[in-house]
């Protein structure tokens, strides 16, 4: 709870920092201070809630799981800010505001992690989305950035409409927004007693969530937005924001709609299949690494959807935690290398291993983790979500399909490694990495490798 308050306040602090602090360095340091404070506060929150779940205002229920997730996601965000703070400041003139918006997003993240009321869910998703629309368009000189912002906003507004409509229908059926209330729980106890209003409502919520996590066929905004946004913000949107939507997703669909899973599992299964095909197959064609990563984020979302699909499996809960952390860190690691490059195409990476062995190595670790090679965290992440489905016992064929798709993903990830290590070229740099950058990237890679050996570290 304190984390929510602090993130909101720190957003305001950042606004004032922009007003009073003249040096860009100072602003960056304020932001870093903020995220560290946020991390500390979320750890304190965790200790306060580790014994017993607590409900605030009948709107939020914070328990061990959500507060633990808050710590993890804050840590990922801290890693993001530590690596990217200079690049964020370099996007435009309003650096303090960018940081402020990021803190507002974090506020939304905490809301999504622990809501127990559909109103908060809605507010959380909006607090998450609106700053993103802005961040996507923050590079005002760049027409692609403007386009990304507008597209994201228009499509996002559409999906918000669906979200609201879904909530309205569910409210119509249950008469309550509170997902812990008797009326609400009673409605979703079994399929036969569920109203068809709820059925439509659930599907609309599913579609709206699917949009936010860029699941096919609602993914079309993703490549344009991720590609068009300033490279400093793309990793933020693709990782921290996305995985927190997943946690909100799993909370609602397992906690509330778990007993009526027959009413939505087919829809999500078809989403998974489409997402995996489209994400992986289209990524093969891409020439730009940034755009490839956008498709990769779609494909990875397909894997994370498995944890939603595997209803009431503890493996799914664990899997989404691990997947969130590993996927976030790996994507951040790859983007951290991309942003240092002048040319985002594959050819632009030719010969990077000779020129910047540290960057090439850390990028390789991250890419291997994204493929899911053993000894990297990505392996266990995939293993957990897929075994959750196997444990559940329904639709095993999707797992086989997913493994095939993971094999395809190896193609485009390894292509990067091939460019870096086995091709000769200039690998022109946009900015030279400092020792600090390299240290962070190695730390990042080490965490990924560590999680490949001891995945239980993220289970709290």
């Amino acid at each position, binding site marked *: 709870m304190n984390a929510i308050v602090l993130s*909101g306040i720190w957003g305001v602090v950042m606004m004032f920092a922009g007003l009073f602090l003249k040096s860009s360095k100072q602003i960056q340091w304020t932001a870093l201070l903020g995220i560290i404070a946020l991390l500390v506060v979320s750890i304190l929150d965790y200790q306060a809630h580790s014994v017993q779940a607590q409900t605030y*205002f009948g709107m939020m229920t914070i328990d061990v799981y959500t507060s633990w997730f808050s710590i993890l996601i804050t840590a990922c965000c801290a890693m993001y800010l530590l690596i990217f703070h200079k690049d964020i400041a370099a996007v435009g003139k*309003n650096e303090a505001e960018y940081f*402020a918006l990021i803190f507002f997003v974090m*506020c939304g993240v905490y809301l999504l992690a622990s809501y127990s009321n559909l109103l908060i869910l809605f507010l959380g998703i909006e607090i998450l989305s609106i700053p993103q629309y802005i961040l996507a368009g923050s590079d*005002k000189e760049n027409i692609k950035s403007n386009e990304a912002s507008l597209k994201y906003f228009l499509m996002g507004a559409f999906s918000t409409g669906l979200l609201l409509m879904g909530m309205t229908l569910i409210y119509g059926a249950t008469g309550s927004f509170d997902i812990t209330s008797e009326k609400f729980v009673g409605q979703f106890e079994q399929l036969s007693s569920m109203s068809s209003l709820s059925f439509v409502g659930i599907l609309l919520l599913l579609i709206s969530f699917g949009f936010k996590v860029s699941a096919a066929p609602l993914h079309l905004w993703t490549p344009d937005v991720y590609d068009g946004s300033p490279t400093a913000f793309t990793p933020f949107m693709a990782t921290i924001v996305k995985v927190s939507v997943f946690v909100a997703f799993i909370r609602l669909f397992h906690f509330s709609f778990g007993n009526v899973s027959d009413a939505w599992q087919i829809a999500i299964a078809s989403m998974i299949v489409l997402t995996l095909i489209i994400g992986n197959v289209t990524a093969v064609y891409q020439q730009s690494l940034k755009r490839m990563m956008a498709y990769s984020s779609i494909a990875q979302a397909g894997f994370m959807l498995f944890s939603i699909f595997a209803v009431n499996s503890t493996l799914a809960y664990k899997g989404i935690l691990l997947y969130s952390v590993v996927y976030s860190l790996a994507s951040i690691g790859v983007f951290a290398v991309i942003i240092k490059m002048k040319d985002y195409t594959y050819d632009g990476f030719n010969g990077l291993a000779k020129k910047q062995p540290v960057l090439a190595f850390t990028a390789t670790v991250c890419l291997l983790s994204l493929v899911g090679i053993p000894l990297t965290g990505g392996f266990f992440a995939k293993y957990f979500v897929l075994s959750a489905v196997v444990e559940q016992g329904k639709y095993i064929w999707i797992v086989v399909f997913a493994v095939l798709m993971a094999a395809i993903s190896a193609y485009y990830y390894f292509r990067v490694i091939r460019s870096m290590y086995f091709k000769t070229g200039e690998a022109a740099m946009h900015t030279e990495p400092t020792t600090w950058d390299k240290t962070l990237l190695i730390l990042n890679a080490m965490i990924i490798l560590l999680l490949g050996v001891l995945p239980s570290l993220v289970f709290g």
Partner: protein
Amino acid sequence: MNIYQITFWILSLFTLAFAIGVIMSRNPINSVLFLILTFFCISGHYVLMNAQFLAIVNIIVYAGAIMVLFLFVIMLMNLNSDTEPQKNFLVQFAGVVSGGALLLIMVAAIKSSLTGLEGKNIDLINSTDIGLIKNLGTVLFTTYVFPFEIASVLFLSAMVGAVVLGKKDSALKTAE
């Protein structure tokens, strides 16, 4: 069928008609005017549901403030039916078909709820007085105080965003 129900159906009919008008009219100004009319009809619905406060707010904020803003923008940009890009017939047809299909599938999904609807007597008035300004205020500052406060973060971020997008980078550069 009592007076309230008659009013409800009439209002609904008008709402839909005006809404169709919004998307059908070639001239943006006409669209906006239709939209204002739609809002008025919706406010009528609010009144029917004994939510006078919401009705007034709806008119003041949406029909008044926002729509006036829209009109200004449209006039400043000098948009009219001539500048509207011509959509070809196929696209329009596809849009209509997909929209119709969406409607169909939604109706199909909730049709079981619709059957038996006639039997239910929808009590449109006096069912609740939550929409009254006093009750609304009480609820807003007791039960729903948390979302109310959280909404401020949402608006704050939207404001910050508006400033970020609105401020001119190049102007700042010259000032330095």
